[in-house]
């Protein structure tokens, strides 16, 4: 419904633009006076006045109509004031299903009345929306038509609107960050009301699978994040052990030894590794790498879990190779020619120049790159969700199964999610932790890289 209204509004705005354009042209001829703005700007001005207020209203309406409808339904439902939040949301979803004609049990008369109420609200809302949008569009168009005069500065008006649009657009990045921080903080705050902060940060047990409904069989619940962070560190370490040497070595070969043709072929091929979706890596880890790791480990007498940390971490490491490689590449390229040539002039071989001159000089850049990829490894989700374990364990053995922060976030939020339950809220607390850790790593990494750039 809203989609069609949007489309119609768009078409009407275009039509209004043409109407304004022709009217301004006709005016220009009949008035015989030079207009300040070209006719097209008068047309665009009308389009803006027709479309934009109605569009903003439509947007607000789409975002709020659900909540408003819910409010009215609950307000008119007998006895709803006494319900708790979760009972209320259960009731609402029941009413919504009933309004669509799906009944799970024999409906009570109240439920039927509420469903009817919701339906009438829906159709009323749709009519009201169309009426308001149409009114806004008509008023806008009429005002726009009225101002077509030689001295009206339509171009200025249109350009002002554009500037405002651009300004608003550029603040969306800030709004996104604010939204992330505020939503994480708010939900974590709710969580810390149920579970003390120190228990979350320093607790050594993580058993979040507690009952959401009274009739579920589940554990008592323990929300100590340390084992989860531990597992994250183990998996990330496995990833780094693969990604760092391979990435740096391939960067060295590509920048120092390889000829132009080899580089032109191999570099894009390496970049493909970064372009493959992570869900593909996850499936590959489960299908091929984990069984391989397991049988290899067993052949040398180590007992490996089917979802070992090393399988997930290793595959993640491969994904990060091009990342480390291209950042090291940049670091090598930033080392001044003079240093390299000075080393050659002293008779050093290529290998000695790389090891004794290039690597130390490029080290801060490489460290920055490694930190950036470490933050990626910590935030990487799908590979670990598919290939790592669910049970939080404090172990250093990479052949055992461990769990990570991202795995816990996803498993806690798939399925039943109730916003007043510590199980759901714990995911947001973990998300906040993850956000802060990766943000810190990124800031340190960027600072390292920048500091080093200033040196040369």
């Amino acid at each position, binding site marked *: 419904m809203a989609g069609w209204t949007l489309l119609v509004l768009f078409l009407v705005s275009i039509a209004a633009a043409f109407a304004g354009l022709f009217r301004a042209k006709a005016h220009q001829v009949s008035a015989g006076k030079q207009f300040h703005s070209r006719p097209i700007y008068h047309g665009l001005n009308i389009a803006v006045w027709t479309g934009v207020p109605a569009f903003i209203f439509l947007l607000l309406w789409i975002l709020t109509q659900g909540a408003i409808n819910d409010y009215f339904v609950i307000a008119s439902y007998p006895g709803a004031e006494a319900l708790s939040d979760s009972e209320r949301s259960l009731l609402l979803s029941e009413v919504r299903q009933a309004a669509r004609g799906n009944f799970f049990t024999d409906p009570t008369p109240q439920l039927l009345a509420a469903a009817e109420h919701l339906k009438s609200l829906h159709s009323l809302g749709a009519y009201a929306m169309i009426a308001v949008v149409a009114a806004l569009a008509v008023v806008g168009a009429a005002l726009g038509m009225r101002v077509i005069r030689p001295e009206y500065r339509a171009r200025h008006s249109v350009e002002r609107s554009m500037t405002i649009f651009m300004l608003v657009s550029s603040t969306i990045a800030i709004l996104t960050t604010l939204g*992330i921080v505020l939503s994480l903080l708010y939900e974590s705050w709710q969580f810390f009301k149920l579970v003390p902060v120190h228990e979350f940060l320093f607790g050594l047990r993580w058993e979040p699978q507690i009952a959401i409904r009274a009739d579920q069989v589940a554990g008592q619940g323990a929300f100590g994040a340390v084992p989860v962070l531990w597992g994250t560190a183990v998996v990330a370490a496995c990833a780094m052990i693969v990604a760092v040497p391979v990435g740096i070595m391939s960067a060295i070969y590509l920048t120092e030894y390889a000829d132009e043709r080899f580089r032109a072929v191999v570099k894009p091929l390496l970049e493909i590794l970064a372009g493959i979706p*992570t869900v593909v890596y996850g499936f590959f880890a489960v299908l091929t790498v984990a069984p391989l790791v397991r049988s290899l480990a067993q052949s040398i007498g180590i007992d490996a879990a089917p979802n070992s940390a090393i399988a997930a971490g290793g595959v993640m490491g491969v994904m990060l190779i091009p990342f480390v490689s291209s950042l090291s590449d940049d670091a090598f390229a930033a080392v001044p020619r003079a240093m390299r040539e000075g080393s050659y002039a002293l008779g050093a071989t290529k290998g000695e120049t790389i090891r004794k001159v290039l690597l130390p000089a490029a080290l801060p850049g490489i460290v920055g790159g490694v930190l950036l990829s470490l933050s990626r490894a910590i935030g990487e989700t799908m590979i670990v*969700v598919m290939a790592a374990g669910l049970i939080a364990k404090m172990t250093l053995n990479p052949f055992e199964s461990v769990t990570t922060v991202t795995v816990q976030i996803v498993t806690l939020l798939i399925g039943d999610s109730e916003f007043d339950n510590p199980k759901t809220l714990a995911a947001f607390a973990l998300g906040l932790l993850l956000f802060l850790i990766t943000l810190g790593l990124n800031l340190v990494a960027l600072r390292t890289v920048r500091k080093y750039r200033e040196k040369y």
Partner: protein
Amino acid sequence: MSVAATLPEPVNWQSDAMKARRKARYAADRRLQAYGMIAIFFALGFLAILVGTLTASGYKAFVQTKASVQLDLSGADIDADNLMDANWRGIVRNGLLGQLDGAAELSRQDQREYFNLFTSSAPYIVRDMVIRNPALLEGEAVYDIPLSDPLDQLAKGEIDRDLPESRRRVSDVQIGFYDRLDERGIISQPFNWGLFTNADSRFPELAGLKGAISGSFWALLVCFLISFPVGIAAAIYLEEFAPKNRLTDVIEININNLAAVPSVVFGLLGLAVFLGWFGLPRSAPLVGGMVLSLMTLPTIIIVTRAALKSVPSAIREAALGIGASKHEAILHHNLPLAMPTILTGTIIGLAQALGETAPLLLIGMNAFITSDPGGVMEASTALPTQIYIWADSPERGFVARTSAAILVLLGFLVLMNTAAILLRNRFERRW
């Protein structure tokens, strides 16, 4: 003291010690080179194995074993005005029994085994064909009935006939039936169009990607419609109009940081804000697209700014010189000239968004939905989340389907990236 006394002994470069030393130094150089080669071959070998295994396990899902069953519906008890309520199960079962000589005399047990050869949805397939084309009621016609997953695996050689009966999922009786049907020549393995025209299903032989592909399409459409205009507008503002003050500095740092925030955190944002506070529907491509657009936005802004920066200032100055306003100069000249690069970056950003899984899981686009979405507000899955669902399914047939879905996803990614590269090579200008 003479000068000569302070100088060290001249080095005899040809001495054995020096030769050995030189040799060791060159060997170290070659070793380093070898390590580099090994690293590159490790990475590329992994890539080859990845693509190789996925192709090897996925290509078989692009064909589907089917039985071409000849059914005569003219004698069946079907009310042409009420096709939905006819006893399709009985009709189709009778028809299936007719395919095998002496099948009608089989014991109940064997008959059940025989019916299990075919997909359990066979009655609905025949019904839907008849509803689409009521003329089929008049007489005989051939219906393609997919075989059920275990038999499909058997036909593709995935199940070893030599295993003892208890260790494989098809019984000896079923293999016997299958061979008799095969002898009659009604078993075939045509291209599996169902993979693209069916939505998800619990039965591997019927599961397809239509719902996932259209879900991804709607989500990407929303993502494009939001992130493309907003990203370009933000980039123009920051590059051309913004005063250099603290606020714009903050915005810039923000954009760079946003590009490095883990994708799962965007999922949390979508769950808390779009679903929790605004009450938008769960699993809807609209919400998925909105979350993806927030992730694509930094990419587009960064690309657009770089593209605008690379347009020579002479172009803007020429436009300003003949009386264009600043807006006109940028929108009529700089932006069109930067557009090929911006489009290339946008396509690459959208390709990334297409492969993004974690945020979509959190907003519920991993639901089990057996029809394709008709719009952005209807619940659906997306390609990567469909892969995740199938990867989690226990039926054997889903392993091949998952690989096939991955190949389809990679195919779309290759297509998009090729388009981006072509666009760049064809239109990008170097100044």
